């Protein structure tokens, strides 16, 4: 039976207090904070981070595909899943697919993965949902939206979660939308949505599933329902006569915000972190209709509970501290450009040649003297043996900062730009930027890990690569 064999999640380190937004605009707003991607993060980098978490002790070469869901992928025309698969180091035969344009995309991708595995066309599929939507400045959606990602590995052996039944209904309605020319999400009247949107379709779909499988509310230890805010969730849960205090998964609205396509899977991960064997869970994802999945936890779940998931990422955070900084990171205002030469475009053939090496932070290991080196060296830097190397993955290795500098001249979006010479625990050294750091905390010999980030964008080409960062948690 196809089911979930591992999970992972990613919440950016930075949080913006909603009070900072209120203060900036002089308007009242809801309480709490929202998770905000760093200036060098986007939907795709967050997806890679969630994927790394999910594949913590799993060989990426053993994964047969990546299904990626988002409404805010970095390209309108160009697949994100191939970049994610490359960064994660999947084998070339893996199926890659993007699921776009619906807040239900995460569960649609999950259903497709379950079908692929059930049909035997893949042993396992990594499903990742990631989103980073913008609400227009000074609006309720800016207050509500947060950034994040979740990943589920779907397989058919040693399932941590068995999927017992699935149900989907599509429903044509203008609830939330963004035309291909829109930067900011739009929504229709809240009273119309209350009566005709989420509060109608979610309870209907869940009731159909419960009736069909002879289930009652009491059968579920946790019900996970995606919703745009706690009020909407409470309305649906009320109609379903669920115990909102104990039975309904919290929306994490005060800690993260509405993460769009990623939300249903992030909430599921949060529920699984608290679940135990034999618990029955229901997941209902809303958006252009509703997907409902009934699932049962197995005793294998304990084996994947060492993931960072939601919990660990929530505990590790840093406040941005100002709305202005958020505006700069999201390019909501034009600021004085750095007095430095413009960034040159990437040489695309060079980037293509590097696709199996640098983009996944693969270097080489000399077969003659055994020294790992990055980037790949045809002639060994230690013993000078020629073309005696094998690929060597650095991306998941931790390292230590040997030396560093905080550069104010580089014209970084969030100066200073911290560069570091890092020694990997398994050998080898790299020079890279450091991100998600507090300059005051950076010391020689501090431990770091590698994280996939966006260096810059020129001519519509996002230049993704790896940076080091303090160990997140």
């Amino acid at each position, binding site marked *: 039976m196809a089911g979930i064999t591992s999970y992972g999640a990613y919440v950016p380190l930075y949080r913006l207090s909603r009070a900072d937004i209120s203060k900036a605009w002089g308007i009242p707003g809801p309480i709490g904070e929202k998770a905000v991607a760093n200036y060098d993060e986007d939907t795709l980098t967050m997806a890679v981070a969630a994927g790394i978490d999910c594949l913590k002790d799993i060989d990426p070469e053993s994964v047969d595909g990546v299904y990626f869901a988002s409404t805010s992928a970095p390209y309108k025309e160009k697949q994100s899943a191939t970049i994610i698969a490359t960064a994660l180091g999947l084998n070339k035969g893996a199926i890659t697919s993007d699921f776009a344009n619906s807040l239900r995309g995460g569960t649609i991708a999950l259903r497709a993965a379950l079908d692929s595995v059930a049909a035997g066309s893949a042993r396992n599929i990594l499903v990742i949902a990631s989103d980073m939507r913008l609400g227009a400045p000074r609006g309720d959606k800016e207050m509500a939206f947060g950034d994040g990602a979740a990943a589920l590995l779907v397989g058919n052996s040693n399932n941590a979660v068995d999927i017992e039944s699935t149900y989907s209904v599509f429903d044509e309605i203008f609830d939330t939308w963004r035309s291909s020319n829109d930067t900011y999400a739009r929504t229709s009247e809240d009273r119309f949505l209350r009566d005709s949107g989420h509060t109608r379709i979610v309870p209907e779909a869940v009731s159909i599933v419960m009736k069909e499988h002879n289930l009652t509310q009491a059968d579920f230890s946790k019900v996970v329902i995606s919703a745009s805010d706690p009020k909407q969730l409470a309305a649906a849960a009320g109609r379903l006569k669920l115990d909102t205090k104990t039975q309904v998964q919290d929306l994490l609205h005060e800690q993260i915000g509405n993460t769009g396509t990623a939300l249903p899977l992030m909430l599921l991960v949060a529920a699984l972190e608290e679940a135990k064997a034999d618990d029955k869970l229901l997941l209902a994802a809303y958006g252009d209709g509703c997907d409902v999945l009934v699932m049962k936890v197995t005793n294998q779940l304990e084996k994947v509970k060492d993931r960072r998931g939601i919990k660990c990422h929530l505990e590790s955070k840093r406040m941005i501290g100002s709305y202005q900084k958020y505006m700069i990171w999201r390019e909501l205002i034009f600021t004085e450009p750095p007095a430095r*030469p413009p*960034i040159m475009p*990437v040489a695309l053939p060079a980037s293509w040649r590097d696709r199996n090496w640098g983009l996944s932070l693969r270097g080489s290991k000399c077969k003659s003297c055994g020294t790992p080196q990055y980037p790949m060296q045809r002639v060994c830097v230690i013993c000078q043996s020629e073309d005696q190397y094998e690929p060597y993955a650095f991306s998941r290795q931790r390292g230590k900062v040997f030396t560093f*500098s905080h*550069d104010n001249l580089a014209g970084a979006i969030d100066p200073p730009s911290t560069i570091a*010479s890092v020694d990997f625990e398994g050998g080898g050294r790299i020079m890279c930027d450091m991100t998600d750091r507090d300059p005051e905390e950076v010391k020689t010999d501090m431990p770091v890990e590698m994280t996939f980030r966006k260096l*810059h964008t020129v001519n519509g080409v996002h230049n993704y690569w790896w940076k080091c960062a303090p160990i997140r948690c």
Partner: protein
Amino acid sequence: MGSIKDRVAIVGMGCTQFGERWDKSADDLIIDAAHEAFEDAGIDRKDVQAAWVGTTGSGTTGRCLSEPLKLQYCPVTRVENACATGSDALRNACYAVAAGIYDIVLALGFEKLKDSGYSGLAVSQVQGTNREQTKTAPAHFALLATRYFSQYGLSPEEGKKMIGRISVKSHKNGTLSPKAHFKKEISIEQVLRAPIVAWPLGLFDCCGVSDGAAAAIVTRAEIAKNFRSDPVYVKALQISVGHMEGFLRSDYDWTHVEETRRAAAAAYAEAGIKNPREEISMAEVHDCFSITEAVTMEDLQFSPQGHVKEDIESGFFDLTGPLPVQPDGGLKCFGHPIGASGLRMMYEMYKQLQGKADKRQIKNPKLGLTHNLGGFPAGPTISALIVGL
């Protein structure tokens, strides 16, 4: 391997005013430096039999020299070897003379940096995956400082004070250099208070960005005295080029520059120098950043490894000290028009050896050393040139 020692001589040199030369084009700088050198050697442009021109980005091919000077169909080779470009142009010129092919050749280095429109160094970008292009030179050299401080137990404050004294010393020398870009004394307090460019390096730890050109006329040693009574003889010309090993090898300590050690050792052997701290009279080294000068003092064997601080504090490298370093103010005061710097350093050694350094004249110098560091400390191009009487 052969040795260059005493086989060729420099019989004329020229050097422009360095600085933000808004009023001078690259061609103007070339003409000014070359004319001074021709005049100094007592030759005419038509006497030049071959030429080597060094620039990293202000011109291409030998034409960038022959065009402004209207050299008449002689061979001109453009040399590029990062910040050692000027020194390498001179080295190649010397070798051609030593080979017996030419009697009179010109080596000229120049750079026009201030047309870039940017305050900091704005070098041309290498195409590729473009992952490195935002990393600046100050940041790369700051890596040396961070590790040096950590390795030798210096707090950032102690470390910054140590390298700060280097800048104070060079700025003092610069006040005596009419051709320097900066001719102003600074205090250690100013250095320590200055804005941070790339932590831990502040504004006064960094050399300026400027325009300039310098030139040398080289002949065979046997005929040098036909040109002047006080030619300066070449004792050693060494280049060591790294292979970026410090970026790859975790045994690189980021407190020294291996290529400087190797180029210096080879230069001392070529010149027959056993004890450089005693025998070298003066040096112009590549103080692109104050920390670079500090570790260079150790790599050139002027100070024991890890002990440059004592020599800095005792004034060992001051103009009046036992081994003056940057008597003209160095890159710190001249700025660093990349292709010109090596020859500008040589110009100072040449004038000092001839006793023509005016207010900054060092007493009876015998041997002068110039050093360039091109690229980054973890795998640079290093030149170590020694000249003497």
